[in-house]
């Protein structure tokens, strides 16, 4: 009957967003008087797997098989569905991500599960099973009643701040039967930025818009991002103009992010852009136009030229 948490690995380490999911899942287990078990797929050291116990889970099921080393939403759904069956889980928790989204959708189909995506609070169990989720790209919330026997909660980043203990979890090897049908999509090649902070996982984000005037000027944005150990992002016009890759586009039709700090440089703040970033805890807006609508949604604002302000901020961060 345990709550099952899918924790995702990135280069053998449990992703930060999955740490939040582990802690969230352990809290749901407390609420429901059950235990919390994690399912982790792919290669990782036993010590890393056992470290999931820091967030409150007592057991880790580890599925490691050469076929599973490459992320594959369909195959991962088969593995997680088998873990659900073994553990008799009624609640499945995971953090939203590109892989988790693909996996969750297949899993919901397999289990006929009630699914809430972009969950932002712990469930309210006082009258059924109710969870709050972010909808309309962050412009509103819904209180969802999950009526299915099996419930899947895909939680939004920064929903919960994990507290850690010294506990470790037991680690059991898990080898369910895989379906050949789950491996029919072949990956021919992939390109991934290395060394930089990944935007969907980032706590701090420095983002820029057309106010930067051209891709050749992005150095001042990257300098501030590097100094802060932040990810870089951009507005839609910037990715449409190919100044920056689409994977950096935040907004209504791009990535929806909820970092602790979002610094918007030379972005006026159209409602479509705000929709993708308005869940950020703190928003800083730097724009030379004092009438830019973004200032109305900001916590801190500077009316000034980004070419002057950004280097000053970078210097101040380096001096800390």
């Amino acid at each position, binding site marked *: 009957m345990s709550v099952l948490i899918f924790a995702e690995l990135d280069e053998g380490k449990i992703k930060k967003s999955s740490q939040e999911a582990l802690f969230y899942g352990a809290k749901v287990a407390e609420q429901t008087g059950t235990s919390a078990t994690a399912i982790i797929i792919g290669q990782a050291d036993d010590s890393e797997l056992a470290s999931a116990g820091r967030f409150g889970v007592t057991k880790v099921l580890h599925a490691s098989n050469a076929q599973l080393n490459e992320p594959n939403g*369909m195959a991962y759904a088969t593995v997680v569905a088998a873990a659900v069956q073994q553990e008799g889980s009624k609640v499945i928790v995971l953090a939203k991500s*590109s892989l988790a*989204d*693909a996996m*969750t959708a297949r899993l919901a*189909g397999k289990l*006929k599960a*009630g*699914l*809430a*995506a*972009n969950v932002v609070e712990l469930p309210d169990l006082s009258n059924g099973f109710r969870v*709050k989720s972010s*909808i*309309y*790209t962050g*412009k509103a*919330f*819904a*209180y*969802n*009643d*999950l*009526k*299915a026997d099996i419930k899947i909660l895909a939680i939004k980043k920064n929903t919960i701040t994990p507290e850690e203990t010294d506990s470790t979890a037991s680690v059991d090897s898990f080898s369910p039967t895989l379906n050949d*049908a789950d491996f*029919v*999509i072949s*990956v*021919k090649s*992939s*390109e*991934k*930025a290395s060394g*930089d902070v990944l*935007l*969907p*996982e980032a706590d*701090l984000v420095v983002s820029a818009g057309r106010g930067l005037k051209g891709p050749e000027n992005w150095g001042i944005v990257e300098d501030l991002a590097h100094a*802060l150990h932040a990810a870089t992002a951009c507005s839609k016009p910037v990715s449409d103009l190919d100044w920056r890759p*689409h*994977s950096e586009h935040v907004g*209504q*039709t791009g990535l929806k992010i909820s970092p*602790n*700090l979002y610094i918007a440089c030379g972005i006026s703040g159209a*409602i*479509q852009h705000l929709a993708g970033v308005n869940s950020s805890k*703190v928003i800083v*807006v730097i724009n030379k136009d004092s009438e830019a609508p973004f*200032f109305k949604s900001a*916590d*801190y604002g*500077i009316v*000034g*030229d980004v070419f*002057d*302000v950004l280097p000053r*901020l970078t210097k*101040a961060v380096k001096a800390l």
Partner: protein
Amino acid sequence: MKILVCVTSVPDTTTKIAFTDNNTKLNKAGVTFITGPYDDYALARAVELKEKTGASITVINVGEADSEPVIRKCLAIGADDAIRVNAEPTDAYFVAEQIAAIAKENSYDLILMGRESIDYNGGQVHGIVGEMLGFPSISPVMQLDIDGDTAKITREIEGGKEQLEAKLPLVLGCQEPIAEWKIPNMRGIMTARTKPLKIVEPTGTDKLTTVANYELPAPRSAVKMIKADEAETLIQLLRTEAKVI
């Protein structure tokens, strides 16, 4: 090749969201409804494939009668016919079940839709449909080419992209820049009026999730302005006051 394009009818992206009836319903007064922006990309790529290969395009919408202007626009852009499943589309599993039921009757080679709807943002329907039909599903798809019975796909991953190949039939969740957005021309608008739009009643499961009520986010407190020539102060405030760095 037979293509099914699944579209949502959603508030325009500039809409300020508000609720009515004790926060249990979207306040539709003054709201313009549009095809989901990601679905528009899916339809646009379907139209390009039609021009190239002679494919047929059926549009499906799970929605109430007020979705019909959006469906007619899809017909004007180039879809051949349309199906509206007469139900409120609030639950991903329920919506997927309606699409899968239609797909089972008609043997589509490609089922295209947006990566997510911009109202509920679940991003789940394509995967559930794929699972129900036993088809592979891929999302978010940025490029799609069809060569015989093989699809060549570029998919966005975190911080990058990957190139994939898979055999049809497939279910794909689409996003930019898969195609150029299409705007209906006058001839398209005229012919759309005569294209078939079939209305069917929903089938299958009751909704597995329902929304009890909605809420708007709390407004942010007033912005604290910092002079440009004292920009360094911001870093101190982010450290000592906001405690985010």
